[in-house]
C-alpha cells in the first residue's frame, strides 16, 4: 500500500470533518506559539536580569588576598611542633595587593585556548571633593578596549564618549549617582583626593550607569595609567586580572588550576554570584512546565477529535477492512491524520510563535536602571522552536496512536450486521 493512498484516504476523512480538524490544528498552533513566546520572553528576562551583574563580572578574578600568612613563625619552631597555639588577633604584614609578574600571567592566559579574554584592573580608593564635603569613591583603572570587548562597558556608559578615556589625559567616567551629587557635566573638571592625601584634577568624559544605584554612587572609571598615578604606583602595578572564559561553567575548575599554577588567589563567578544561577534556573523550569502543559493539553484535543472521528467513521473503517485493508493500514490512516494535524499545527505554531515574540519585542519597556533596554527582552534561541516542534510531534503521535489502535481493532462484521 502506497503512502500516497494512505494520505489520500486520511485527507478525505479530514476534509469530511474539516471544522474539528481545524480546531485541533489551531490548538496545536496556539500551544506552540505560546510555548515559544513564553520561553523566549522568560529567557530574555533572565538574560537581562543576570546580565546586569554577570555581564560585568569576570568569570575568574585573580588577585592577592590580604590575609595573615598561613605559616606563622611559631609553626616553624620544632619545639612546639606537636603543640596547638592559641595566638589570637594575628595581623597581616607587608601585604602587597600587587600581582607579581602580572604581564607574564596575562600573556600566559592569552595563550590559553579556554580563555576568551583577559583584562587587567586596578582599584583606587578616593574621595570626590565637593567643596567642603568629601564623598567616598572608588576609581577602577581599566584597559578601555578590553573592558568594552569583554564586559560590554560601552552599554553602561551614558553621555560622553568612552574612547575619550583613552585619548584624554587624566580623564574619568563618573558613576551616574556620584555625578548627580556633584552636578558634574561632561567636560567639567573634578578633584579627587587619594588615600595618600594627594589631590588630582580629572576631566569628566562620560557617565557610567550599571543599573544598580548603590554602585553608581561610588564607582567611577579611569584608564590604568591615570589610576596608577592616583595610587602613586609605577606602571607595572596591577592588582586584579579579570578573565572571561569561552565556557562559563569551567570557571570553578580553572580557578583552582590558576590558583595553584600562578600561586595567587582566584575567585570564580559561580562562587561570587551563586544566587543568580538559582533564580534563572527556577524561572526556566517554571516556564518549561507551563509550556509543556500547553503542548500536552493540545495533545488531548487531538485525542478527543480522533476518537470522535473514529466513532463517526465506523462504517468507513468496516468497509475498508471488508475490502481487504488490514488493521495496520487503518492504523496508518489514523496516525497520518493525527500527524498531519500535528505537523500543520507545528509549522503555523512556529511561525506565530516567532511573530508573537516579535510583537512582545516591540512593546516599549523603559527602566531607569537599564539604559540599553527600550523594549521587552526576547531570546530568539532556536532551541525553543525545536523543543516545541519535537514535543508537539511526539504528543500528536501519541494522541493519534491510541485512537488509531482502537480503530484498527474494529470488527467489520459487527458494524456491517448492525446496519
Amino acid at each position, binding site marked *: 500500500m502506497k503512502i500516497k493512498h494512505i494520505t489520500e484516504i486520511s485527507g478525505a476523512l479530514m476534509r469530511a470533518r474539516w471544522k474539528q480538524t481545524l480546531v485541533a490544528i489551531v490548538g496545536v498552533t496556539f500551544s506552540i506559539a505560546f510555548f515559544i513566546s513564553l520561553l523566549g520572553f522568560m529567557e530574555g528576562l533572565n538574560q537581562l536580569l543576570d546580565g546586569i551583574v554577570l555581564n560585568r563580572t569576570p568569570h575568574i578574578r585573580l588577585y592577592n588576598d590580604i590575609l595573615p600568612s598561613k605559616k606563622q613563625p611559631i609553626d616553624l619552631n620544632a619545639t612546639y611542633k606537636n603543640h596547638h597555639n592559641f595566638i589570637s588577633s594575628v595581623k597581616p604584614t607587608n601585604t602587597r595587593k600587587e600581582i607579581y609578574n602580572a604581564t607574564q600571567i596575562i600573556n600566559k592566559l592569552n595563550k590559553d585556548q579556554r580563555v576568551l579574554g583577559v583584562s587587567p584592573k586596578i582599584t583606587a580608593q578616593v574621595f570626590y571633593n565637593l567643596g567642603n564635603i568629601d564623598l567616598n569613591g572608588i576609581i577602577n583603572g581599566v584597559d578601555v578596549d578590553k573592558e568594552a570587548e569583554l564586559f560590554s562597558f560601552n552599554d553602561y556608559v551614558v553621555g560622553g564618549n568612552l574612547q575619550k578615556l583613552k585619548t584624554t589625559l587624566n580623564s574619568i567616567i563618573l558613576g551616574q549617582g556620584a555625578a548627580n551629587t556633584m552636578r558634574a557635566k561632561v567636560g567639567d573638571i573634578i578633584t579627587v583626593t587619594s588615600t595618600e592625601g594627594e589631590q588630582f584634577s580629572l576631566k569628566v568624559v562620560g557617565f557610567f550607569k550599571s543599573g544598580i544605584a548603590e554602585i553608581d554612587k561610588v564607582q567611577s572609571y579611569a584608564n590604568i595609567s591615570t589610576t596608577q598615578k592616583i595610587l602613586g604606583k609605577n606602571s607595572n602595578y596591577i592588582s586584579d586580572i579579570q578573565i572571561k572564559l569561552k565556557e562559563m561553567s569551567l570557571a570553578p575548575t580553572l580557578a583552582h588550576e590558576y590558583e595553584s599554577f600562578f600561586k595567587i588567589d582566584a575567585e570564580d563567578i559561580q562562587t561570587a554570584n551563586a544566587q543568580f544561577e538559582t533564580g534563572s534556573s527556577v524561572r526556566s523550569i517554571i516556564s518549561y512546565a507551563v509550556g509543556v502543559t500547553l503542548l500536552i493539553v493540545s495533545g488531548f484535543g487531538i485525542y478527543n477529535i480522533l476518537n470522535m472521528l473514529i466513532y463517526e467513521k465506523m462504517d468507513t473503517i468496516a468497509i475498508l477492512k471488508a475490502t481487504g485493508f488490514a488493521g495496520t493500514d487503518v492504523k496508518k490512516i489514523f496516525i497520518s491524520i493525527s500527524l498531519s494535524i500535528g505537523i500543520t499545527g507545528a509549522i503555523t505554531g512556529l511561525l506565530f510563535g516567532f511573530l508573537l515574540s516579535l510583537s512582545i519585542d516591540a512593546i516599549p519597556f523603559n527602566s531607569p536602571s537599564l539604559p540599553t533596554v527600550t523594549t521587552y527582552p526576547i531570546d530568539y534561541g532556536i532551541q525553543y522552536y525545536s523543543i516545541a516542534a519535537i514535543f508537539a510531534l511526539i504528543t500528536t503521535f501519541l494522541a493519534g496512536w491510541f485512537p488509531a489502535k482502537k480503530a484498527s481493532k474494529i470488527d467489520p462484521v459487527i458494524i*456491517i450486521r448492525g446496519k
Partner: protein
Amino acid sequence: MKNKIVLEAKSINKSFYNPVKVDVLKDINFNLTRGEYASIIGRSGSGKSTLLYILSTMDTDFTGELIIDGISIRGKTEKQLAAVRNEKIGFVFQFHYLLNEFTALKNVMLPGFKLDKLSEEELEHNAYEFLKDLGIEKLAHKMAYQLSGGEKQRVAIARALINDPLVIMCDEPTGNLDTKNADIVFNIFKELTEAYNKTLLVVTHDLNFAKKTGRIIELDDGKII
C-alpha cells in the same frame, strides 16, 4: 481448469452465545468450482449472511474448515486474511456500503490501492470500464452520497470486481434494483462466470434470479437442504 475447486467449506458450525447458545450454522459442507454461478436461498434468519461473512474470511469465529484457492484460512493472521480478502474475494453487501468521502470512481479504485499491482492510471481506466459495463459511467465523478440506492449498489459491484478476484460473494445484490437493472446485474454476473471464469456466490430472495443461476444452495435453519 474448469473444475478446479476454489472454495471448500468443511463441516462449518457457528453459534452465538448471548446469553444462551444459538446454533446459526450446522455442519455446512459444500464446494465451489471455478466458473460456477451459485445462489443461496432461504428464509430470513436462516443464516445466509452469517455464512457469507465466514466464507469471506471476515468472521473467523467458527468451527470447521474453510479452504480458499487450496489454502486453509486457519491460523492465518489478521493481516494475511485481509490480503486474501483483498486479492481473491469480491464482496457486495446486503446494504450498499460506499465511502461517502469519495467519488464513485474512487470507491471502485480503493481495493486496488491496497493491492497495489496496477498503476493509478490503469486502475482508473479499469474502474471506469466496470462502471460503463454497469451503465453508470456518467456518475463516475459524483460523490457516493449523491447516488441513489440502486446506483450505489452497482458501484459496490464494480468495487467487488476491481481486483479481478477468484470468488465474488453478494448479499442480495439486486435487493434495491428494479427488474430491468436486476437483469443487467444478472447478465453481468453470467458474463463474468462464462467469459472470465469467475466463481459467483449470490444470496438472494428473488427466486426467479436464483432459478437462472447454475446451482441453488438452500439453507433452512442453518442447514443445507
